[in-house]
């Protein structure tokens, strides 16, 4: 009987070999795919139970993990929830947004650069710890922006973005309405589900980061781009005269629908020339419609694209909505783009970049929000180097546009942003919404000090509980921009 016993032995050997090969296949070859399977809650629970690194502003965390006594071991908390929610996002059992999502690998400790630390932790039996993410945010500017926007009333929808022009560092990024990420990070999953549904169904879209995700017509603030394009083309400088007029009939049109005016501001008689400064100070739509026509669609688009329109440039939070300068437009539409109407639309971040580009001698820096990534013991893993996004216009052109913007603050519609003793450059904008029952959007962009810019700001107010005819970029946005600039400079 020994021969069949030997055969049986070989058969058993094959059975065990098959088991071993299959186990290896499952736990080694297929492990990655299994871990990436969206159905795999285990990975999510583990991520949720991890001691994540902090998100730091200066030395203070705006998101941190504190020990908790339940099965998830750590509770994610947000010390200044409303102010920083659009930046930090939330880290809930069901998912993450904002920096919590975009820098998850460092925060969770999965990043390969944290391997040595994790390995040491593994050997010494400690739980691996996530690394920290330090933001570029200036806490005083953020506070000023938040308070300023909040001061417009409880129903305000809007956003403020401040950039350091020379580097592209984002110094403030506020979006209202906001929400409390602590509620979504709670371990009481039923309440999280409820809260999450509530926020998702809210018509005011509190989960939206308006700074990068809301795209609206920039109105007159876009005249800065039009002016830059005209000067760059050699048509004018700051001291030239440009076409003026009480009204202007757009090419290819007839009748009142194609006729634009300046809502009563002083822009010279039809057919006359007015100083460029006056056109900017008084935000003359008639002038800029004509200037845009002179520049031409191609060069308008070129300059707009160079400032970041139609471009993707921001990865620290996602998704970034692309700002739009329309392609293939006729002459009438071109005229409208000159003052930021028709299909032109921009995010607050985009308009801050326009302002910062002029401030930085025409060089637009790539905006960024994460300054450093650190290991849990505060060693720097990576520091973001400022990166040039584009040379939008020449330094000379930028200087001329700057003069126009300084005049606008000193003698024009942007005067609410004036700071005593400091030269400020700015531009207002009040964009038509297209709907008569809806208030216009108020915009404001500025930078200061004009001779050595430290901060460029864009303020966007989408909706506020304020009578319709009182909505004006300068009146509403100016003081907020001023407060933010002061917070940075002082």
């Amino acid at each position: 009987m020994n021969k069949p016993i030997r055969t049986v032995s070989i058969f058993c050997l094959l059975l065990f070999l098959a088991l071993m090969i299959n186990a290896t296949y499952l736990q080694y070859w297929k492990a990655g795919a299994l871990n990436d399977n969206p159905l795999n809650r285990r990975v999510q629970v583990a991520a949720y139970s991890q001691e994540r690194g902090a998100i730091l502003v200066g030395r203070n965390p705006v998101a941190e993990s504190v020990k908790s006594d339940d099965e998830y071991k750590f509770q994610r908390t947000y010390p200044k929830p409303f102010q920083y929610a659009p930046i930090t996002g939330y880290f809930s059992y069901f998912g993450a947004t904002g920096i919590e999502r975009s820098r998850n690998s460092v925060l969770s400790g999965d990043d390969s650069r944290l391997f040595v630390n994790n390995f040491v932790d593994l050997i010494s039996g400690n739980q691996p710890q996530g690394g920290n993410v330090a933001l570029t945010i200036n806490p005083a500017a953020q506070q000023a922006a938040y308070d300023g926007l909040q001061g417009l009333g409880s129903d305000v929808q809007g956003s403020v973005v401040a950039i350091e022009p020379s580097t592209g560092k984002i110094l403030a990024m506020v979006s209202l309405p906001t929400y409390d990420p602590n509620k979504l990070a709670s371990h009481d999953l039923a309440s999280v589900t409820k809260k999450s549904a509530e926020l998702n169904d809210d018509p005011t879209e509190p989960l939206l980061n308006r700074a990068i995700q809301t795209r609206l017509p920039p109105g007159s603030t876009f005249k800065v781009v039009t002016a830059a394009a005209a000067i760059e083309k050699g048509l004018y400088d700051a001291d030239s005269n440009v076409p003026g007029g009480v009204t202007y009939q757009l090419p290819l049109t007839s009748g009142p629908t194609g006729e634009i005016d300046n809502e009563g501001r002083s822009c010279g008689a039809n057919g006359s020339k007015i100083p460029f400064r006056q056109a900017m100070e008084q935000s003359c739509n008639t002038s800029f419609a004509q200037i845009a026509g002179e520049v031409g669609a191609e060069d308008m688009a070129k300059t707009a694209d160079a400032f970041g329109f139609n471009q993707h440039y921001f990865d620290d939070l996602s998704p970034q909505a692309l700002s739009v300068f329309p392609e293939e437009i006729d002459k009438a539409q071109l005229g409208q783009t000159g003052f930021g109407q028709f299909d032109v639309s921009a995010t607050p971040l985009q308009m801050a970049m326009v302002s910062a580009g002029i401030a930085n001698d025409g060089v637009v820096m790539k905006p960024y929000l994460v300054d450093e990534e650190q290991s849990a013991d505060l060693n720097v893993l990576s520091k973001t180097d400022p990166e040039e996004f584009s040379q939008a216009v020449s330094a000379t052109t930028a200087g001329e546009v700057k003069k126009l913007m300084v005049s606008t603050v000193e003698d024009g519609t942007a005067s609410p942003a004036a700071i005593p003793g400091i030269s400020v450059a700015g531009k207002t904008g009040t964009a038509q919404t297209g709907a008569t029952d809806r208030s216009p959007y108020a915009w404001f962009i500025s930078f200061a000090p004009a001779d050595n810019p430290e901060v460029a700001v864009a303020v966007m107010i989408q909706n506020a509980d304020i009578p319709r005819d009182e909505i004006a970029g300068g009146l509403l946005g100016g003081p907020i921009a001023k407060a933010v600039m002061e917070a940075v400079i002082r």
Partner: protein
Amino acid sequence: MAQQSTLMGFVHRRRRGAELFLLVLALAVGIGAYAAVGIGVQGEVPPDILGYGGWLAGLVIGAHVVIRLVAPYADPVLLPVVAALNGLGLAVIHRIDLAREAIDRPHGFAQQQLIWMTLGVGLFVVTLLAIRDHRVLQRFTYTSGLAAIVLLLLPILPGIGRTINGAQIWIRLGPFSFQPGEVAKVLLVIAFAGYLVLHRDALALAGRRVLFVDLPRGRDLGPILAMWLVSLGILVFQHDLGSSLLFFGLFLIMLYVATERPGWLIVGGLMFVGGATLAYFLFGHVRIRFDIWQHPFDFYTAEQGGKSFQPVEAKFGMGWGGLIGRGFGNGDPNRVPYAESDFIVSSIGEELGLTAVMAVLMMYGLIVERALRTSLICRDAFGKLVAVGLASVFAIQVFVVVGGVTGLIPLTGLTTPFLSYGGSSLVANWVIIALLLRISDQARRPLPTISDDTAAFSAEETQIVRAVSA
């Protein structure tokens, strides 16, 4: 073979010292794992580690002492391997207990399992003491067979039978649940061995040759047909895919070994394929198992019926464990339903990694290898068949359950020997090891030294026999 060895002067050594040394290693695994669970889950060495370790050590050292006394030549590897597996299983069950305690689910399985282990070791000792020669079991061929059939029928009797998770393989006596199939498999091995020893010639001889293979005669197909029907019956009436496969495979292997005729494997293989195909088309519960095996992710979510939740979670767990595992306390093995019994391998894979799964498979492989070796050197046909049968039970059971959990074959419900929580299985497996040790003791024991008088007599007798046969 054995005789040749003795003729060449080869005598098996007792190797009890080696066994003791290996036992210390096995205890280090069991008690170490228990301590690691405490450190990993609760952050401290469990306060009852001395009592627990002492109890475990007492049990296996006691078993060792009994072997020294009544089976001194028994295989020295089996007990340590079994002790290591049982110790590891206890630690993992304890780990699951702690996870369940944290979320207020029923727990305390580890204590019960330790009681079952105590009972198992007790029966192990009783078996070794009571059965001094395995050949006496041959007398109980038909008794065992009958008892096995009765045991297999018990769960479908109304009143005491219980259906758990769709499988009707449990009986309930007072507070105890019991899986009679686990005991039946030992009895079946004995019954098959006894039957085949008597009838192997008839089953082996006649036949016709088709394509280099001797196929058995139609009239000899009776036993295998009966076994095939019994297996199908288990499948149909008890919904127990695993046991069905186990019993049929066991019978087939023993039939092949007894008759030395591969033709039986062909016949049996065809019957298996036929039965499986029939079952697939006739029974929904078989078909769904097969479909889940083919497309596990299509049945995962609650909307899809959640039928593959368990195997898919097990796969996620094992994938997550990776090469070296998460470590005790850092995984979430409790996500898998029945992580402490049928799916204990996935718990090990998750927290101790592929490394531990391989080690566990190696240990099972060692048990099978030692059993087959015992079978090879055993001097009597009955012993050979029992040993090869018990080895096959282990090999098939491990293949079916681990293969099912890891997705190699469709999932069937069987316990993982010595690891899974479950009294019937644990006790039955300890008895199996006792039987193997008894047979190996017989096989490795040197032939009695022959005293002068009888030597002359027997030599003479032998000569006579030779003369006659010549």
